[in-house]
């Protein structure tokens, strides 16, 4: 691994770039839902309050950390780092400057599935380790919700893989040159967005973090640095899932490129990627603001009786399209 790759991994378009994107996403989320609800949203820190998530992060990180007496200190200390690592590694596989991510592997789509599962597992572990009454209930709900949305999530991610006949994100992104998979497999895209809402614990699936029922969900007992990183991880997952949607369904960074020089192409690709990313982001913001929370039994029923059969049907259609 040479110096260029390391700096790409850590700076652009790697970790630093995506962390700032995560802050930007959080600000856009707050601003969009505020405008939709007839409020102003953050206005004080920076122009239009754009630095508010950054200020929040540093404020939380500088605060005293209180560790509950009965908690598992080891997990609480090292868990957030692992939890943060999941989307932080995942974003390295997202193609931004070209059709190749910084890291890539012929089977990296399967690794993405693992990362999504691992993220939820870490959330469950952290919730149990903090040993709070509300966090325990929240973890129960989190796991029930995970078991219901995992199958449609995997099916919706496999559909583009079948269409592209490739298990790598690079292969899927570059195979969409003529036709984006959102056109070929619109249901898979919709299912992916719905499952992403459940993965991100956003309405209507914010059941594990329903603040009017169980306070802060599985994050209730966290404070200080831990809470700052857990919150940052949630924003990073937000960006990660949107970027995954862009790569799998919206042709990745593809778009009309006028120049043949490599670095000019990269600039074009990065701009196309960002435009698509924010489009997906706004879709999620709008859905989450417009809906109310459902109950856990209703969510489970929805996923198993409607969304899973739909994504199975979409998968069958994709197989017919490819192997007819």
């Amino acid at each position: 691994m040479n110096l260029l790759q390391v700096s790409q991994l850590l700076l652009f378009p790697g970790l630093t770039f995506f962390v700032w994107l995560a802050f930007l996403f959080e600000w856009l989320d707050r601003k969009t839902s505020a405008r939709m609800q007839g409020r102003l949203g953050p206005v004080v820190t920076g122009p239009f309050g754009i630095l508010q998530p950054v200020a929040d992060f540093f404020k939380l990180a500088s605060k005293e950390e209180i560790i509950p007496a009965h908690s598992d200190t080891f997990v609480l200390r090292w868990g957030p780092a692992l939890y943060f690592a999941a989307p932080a590694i995942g974003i390295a596989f997202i193609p931004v400057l070209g059709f190749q991510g910084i890291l890539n592997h012929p089977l990296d789509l399967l690794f993405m599935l693992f990362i999504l599962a691992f993220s939820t597992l870490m959330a469950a572990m952290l919730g149990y380790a903090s040993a709070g009454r509300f966090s325990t209930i929240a973890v129960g709900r989190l796991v029930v919700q995970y078991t219901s949305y995992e199958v449609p999530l995997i099916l919706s991610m496999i559909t583009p893989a079948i269409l592209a006949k490739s298990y790598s994100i690079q292969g899927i992104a570059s195979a969409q040159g003529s036709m984006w998979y959102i056109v070929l497999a619109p249901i898979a895209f919709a299912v992916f967005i719905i499952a992403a809402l459940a993965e991100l614990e956003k309405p209507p699936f914010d059941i594990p973090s329903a603040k009017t029922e169980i306070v802060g969900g599985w994050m209730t007992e966290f404070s200080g640095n831990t809470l700052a990183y857990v919150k940052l991880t949630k924003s990073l997952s937000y960006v990660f899932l949107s970027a995954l949607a862009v790569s799998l369904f919206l042709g990745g960074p593809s778009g009309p490129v006028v120049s043949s020089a490599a670095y000019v192409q990269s600039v074009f690709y990065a701009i196309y990627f960002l435009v698509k990313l924010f489009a997906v982001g706004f879709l999620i913001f709008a859905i989450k603001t417009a809906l109310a929370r459902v109950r856990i039994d209703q969510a489970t029923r929805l996923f198993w009786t409607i969304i899973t059969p739909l994504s199975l049907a979409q998968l069958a259609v994709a197989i017919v399209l490819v192997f007819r």
Partner: protein
Amino acid sequence: MPFGPIHPSLKEPEYFKLILEGERIVQVVPRIGYVHRGIERAAQERTWVKNIYLFERICGICSFAHSLGYTHAVENLTAFEVPKRAKYIRLIVAELERIHSHLLWLGLVGHWAGFDTLFMWVWKDRERVLDLEEAITGNRVHKSYSTIGGVRMDFPDGIAAKIKSDLEYIEKRVDYYETLVQSEETFSVRTKGVGRITQETARKLCPVGPLLRCTGIARDVRVEDPYAAYDEVPPRVQTSNDGDIASLLKIRLNEIRESSWMIKTAVERLPLGPYKVSVPRVVPQGESTFHVEAPRGELFYFVKSKGGSSPERVKVRSSTVANILTATEMLKGHTLADVPIVLTGMDPCFGCMDRISVVEAGKPKSWSISGEDLRKYGIEYYKGRKSR
């Protein structure tokens, strides 16, 4: 599983012991008294007029209904007749308060169902009603408007057009919210069939207000025993037969429309004349009760005078006291996730209803204790606790 007294879904401290089978609720035991403020006792120390401002502070939402109940009860003891103009103004402010209370409730239901957008929108519209209240009475929340013998200030000139246009805006929004709460799938699955209450249960437990009307029993103090100008501008009582949160939504939205119509009619028909009569500071001896229809339901006032400058005894029964047992009944059979929305469904006001009763076996129903004895009893009580 304890629910409260400090819980994120309760804005006021109250304790509910939930007995669960898995996630299902089989029994609910409420325990009240966490925000008992001793207002009835404090009223005995204050003059008749000062008490208006005290009783208003029982509730921050239906404050005008409280002052209305109290002033009517006191006016019953005096021989003065309230001027007709004052009666109409009282009706206007009381109905504005009903609109603002119902809108507040609608927003809260949205909030507890995880539908924050509805909450923000409704509360923004509610501001208009509060502004109208401010324009008429000078205050948004504790209006201190009704006074013994009429109202404190005259109805302002040139406000009729503003009232009309603002109310038309509210009516339009209410129509929109009605379609919203019925058509929004994620919201309607949380409200339809949740918090069921049958007519028999309602007859047994005697809830008041919308909670009673949602079972199909059309009872409303404004119609049955009209006060203020309700005999001349009578409301149509809104009922529903479903007895769940969705029907409560329907009733309250219809009541907003009805109130809006009543205000507009009352403003049109507003008679000229004095807006208050001067009443002496001493109220003649006697006892009187009065009930008004607060936004949450029937509100009772009992006033006893010995002929002095302050009351001998005032007793308040706010609507939440009547409703709380019904709410516990509504919770049975539902899951833990439904508790906030069902509790909000009855529009609780725990601050209004908290009371304390001391029962000691072997003593008669009421006894008195001197301040010195009470102090000694307190010292002994805490000594005993420390040694335990």
